[in-house]
C-alpha cells in the first residue's frame, strides 16, 4: 500500500498563459528607447540639412573652388553688396592646416598615452594607479580654453625651442623645412597643445581596454615564464589594439574640430603652409571663429559652408577609423 506524502491538490491553479508577445510596459519601453536611440540620427541629419541649406548658395557659386582654392576675399561694390563673380571663398589653406595640426597631435599623443596606459595597468601599484587615473581623468575634464591660455603663456616658449631643434637636426625632411626662421605660433606649437589635450582621452580609452585583458591569459603568460614585457607583447597589446585605435580616433576627432585652443595659440594666416614649424597657419574651426565676428550675411553663409565641410571631414575620418576599429577588433580577439 503506497502512501503519498504530498496531498494532491484539489484544484490546481490554472497554468500561466505562455506567450512570446511582449507586455504592454515592454512595448512602451522599447518604443521610448528606440526613439531616444534614433535621436543621434535625427540630430546629425538636421546638422547636415541646415548647414547645407544655409551654405548652399556659396557652395553653388564657388563650386569645387570652395575646397581646392585658398583665397578668401569678399568683394563688395560701393553700396556694400557682394559682387558674386569676383568674390572668392576657398578653404583649402585652412583644410591643410587642420590636417597638419591634428596629425602632429596624434603622432605625439598616441605613444605617450599607450605607454601611460600600460604603466597604469601593469606596473603601477593599486594605490598609485587609482591616484594617477583620477589625475588623468581630471585632465580630460579641463576646458579647452585653459589649454589655449596655458599653451600660449607657458608651453609656447619651450615648444619653439623644440621646433628649432627639429629644424636644426631634421631640417632635410620637407615638413620641417623653412625659408623664414619664424618659429612663434606655428602649427607645430598648436599640434603640441592639441596633443596635450588628447592624451587623457586616448590614455583613458587605452587603459579601459587594457584593464579588460582576460586575466587567465595574463596569468598563463606569467606561468609560462614570461617577463612583464613579454606578457604585454603577447597578450595585452594584441587584445587592446582595436581599443587603442579607437582612442586615437577619438583624439583625432577632437583635435580636428578644436577651435579655441588653436585660435589662441596659432598665428592664423590665410595661406597654404605645409611647413609645420613656420609660424603661420590655421584650421577651419578657428578660421570660422575668427571671421564670424565681423562677417556680413554673405560671409556668414560662406562660414556655414565651411562648417559643413568641417562636419563632413570629421564624419569621414570617424567612419574610416570606425572601419579600422571593427577590423582590428575581429583579428585582435
Amino acid at each position, binding site marked *: 500500500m503506497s502512501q503519498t506524502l504530498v496531498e494532491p491538490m484539489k484544484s490546481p491553479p490554472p497554468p500561466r498563459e505562455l506567450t512570446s508577445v511582449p507586455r504592454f*510596459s515592454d512595448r512602451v519601453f522599447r518604443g521610448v528607447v528606440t526613439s531616444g*536611440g534614433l535621436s543621434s540620427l535625427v540630430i546629425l541629419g538636421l546638422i547636415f540639412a541646415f548647414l547645407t541649406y544655409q551654405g548652399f548658395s556659396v557652395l553653388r557659386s564657388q563650386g569645387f573652388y570652395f575646397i581646392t582654392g585658398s583665397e578668401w576675399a569678399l568683394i563688395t561694390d560701393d553700396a556694400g553688396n557682394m559682387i558674386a563673380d569676383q568674390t572668392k571663398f576657398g578653404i583649402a589653406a585652412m583644410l591643410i592646416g587642420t590636417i597638419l595640426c591634428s596629425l602632429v597631435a596624434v603622432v605625439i599623443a598616441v605613444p605617450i598615452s599607450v*605607454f601611460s596606459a600600460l604603466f597604469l595597468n601593469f606596473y603601477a601599484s593599486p594605490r598609485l594607479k587609482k591616484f594617477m587615473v583620477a589625475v588623468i581623468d581630471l585632465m580630460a575634464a579641463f576646458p579647452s580654453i585653459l*589649454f589655449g591660455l596655458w599653451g600660449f603663456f607657458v608651453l609656447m616658449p619651450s615648444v619653439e625651442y623644440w621646433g628649432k631643434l627639429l629644424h636644426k637636426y631634421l631640417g632635410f625632411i620637407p615638413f620641417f623645412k623653412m625659408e623664414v626662421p619664424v618659429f612663434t605660433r606655428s602649427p607645430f606649437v598648436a599640434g603640441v597643445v592639441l596633443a596635450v589635450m588628447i592624451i587623457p582621452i586616448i590614455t583613458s580609452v587605452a587603459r579601459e581596454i587594457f584593464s579588460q585583458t582576460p586575466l587567465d591569459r595574463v596569468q598563463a603568460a606569467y606561468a609560462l615564464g614570461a617577463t612583464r614585457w*613579454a606578457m604585454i607583447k603577447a597578450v595585452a597589446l594584441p587584445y587592446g589594439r582595436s581599443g587603442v585605435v579607437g582612442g586615437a580616433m577619438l583624439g583625432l576627432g577632437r583635435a580636428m574640430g578644436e577651435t579655441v585652443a588653436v585660435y589662441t595659440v596659432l598665428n592664423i594666416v590665410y595661406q597654404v603652409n605645409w611647413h609645420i614649424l613656420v609660424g603661420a597657419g590655421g584650421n577651419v574651426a578657428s578660421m570660422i571663429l575668427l571671421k564670424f565676428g565681423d562677417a556680413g550675411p554673405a560671409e556668414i553663409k560662406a562660414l556655414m559652408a565651411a*562648417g559643413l565641410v568641417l562636419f563632413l571631414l570629421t564624419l569621414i575620418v570617424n*567612419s574610416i577609423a570606425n572601419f579600422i576599429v571593427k577590423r582590428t577588433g575581429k583579428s585582435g580577439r
Partner: protein
Amino acid sequence: MSTPTAIKPQKPWLATPKERAINAATIVGSAIATYGLVAITPLKGKLAYFALYFIIYIAADFFIHLASRGISAGKDAIARGVVTLGLVVALLPILSILVTVFNRGRGGLHWGLLTHDMKMNSVNDPINQGGLLHALTGTSILVLIALVISLPIGILTALYLTEIKGRFAGPIRFLVQAMSGVPSIVAGLFILSAIVYPLTKAYSGFVGSLALSILMIPTIARTSEEVLLLIPNDLREAGVALGGTQWRTVAMVVLPAARTGLVTAVILGIARVAGETAPIVLLTGGGETVNANPFSGPMGSLPFYIWKSFAVGSAESVTRAWAGIFVLIVIVLILFVTARFLSERKTSR
C-alpha cells in the same frame, strides 16, 4: 625532544636588499651622469636634463638586468623605463597647468568675484573691482539646461545599443561615434542656422544650452554604453528568469548596477561642456550683468568671460582671465572630487 622550529615565511617576489641597493644606485648614478654630461657637452636646458636622465637610466637598467638575468630581463627593463617615461610625460602638463593657474590666477582673486558682476566695470579696471557673478550663474544655467536635455537622450541611446540591440544598433553606434566627432563650433553654427536665424533672431542662454547638449549627448551615450556593456549578462538573465519584464529588469537590475558608471557619464558630460567656449561665443552674446532668464537677453558665462578678458590683452584683463580660469578649475575639481567620492561609496558598500 627538539621543538619544531617555525619556518619564517619568505617572500621571494620582493626585492632583496641587494637588488634594492642596485636600483637606488642606478637612479642616483644616472642622475650624476646626467649632470656631468650636461656640464661637459653643449647640451643645455631642462629638456636636456630630462631626456638624458631617462636615456641613461634606461640604458643602465638594461645592462644591469642583461648582465644578471639575460636578454629577456633586459628587454623588460627597457619596457619598464619607457612606459614609466610615458606616464611622466603625460603628467607633466597637468602639473604645469595647475601650477600656472594657481600662480597667475591668485593675483586676481578676491571675495568680490562671487558677489559682483561686470555691469559697472570694464575688464581694464583694477582687479579688485567687478566680479564673476554673472558668469557663474550663466554657466550653471547653461550646463543645467544642457544636462536636462542630454541625460535622457544619452542614456536612452545607450540602452538602445545595449538592451534592445535592435536592427539599427550598428548604424546608431556608428552615428553616436560620428556625433562625438562633431566639432563644437559646428554645433554652434548648426544652432545658429537652425534656430537663431530663422526663429529667435537673438542671442540667449537657451540656444547656447542647445548647442552644449549636442556636445554632451554623445559623451553621455558612449560612456553609459561602455558601462552598460560591462554589466554581466547573467544579471539580465536572472532578472528575466525571475519573471521580470524587460522594462523591470533594466530599471531595477541593470541601471542600478551601472549607477556608478552613469554618474561618471554625467560628470564627463558636464566636464565636456562646462568650459566649452566656441559655441558660447557664437550664441549666448555674453552679457555683463546677471541674467537668470535663459530665454531672453545675452547670458554671460565663465568661458566667455575668460575669452573676452584674454582677447583684450592688457595686464589687468589677462589677470582677470586667469582668475576666471582659477574659478573654473575649482568648479571642475569640486565636481570631480564629488563624483569620485560618490562612486567610491557605491563600490565599497
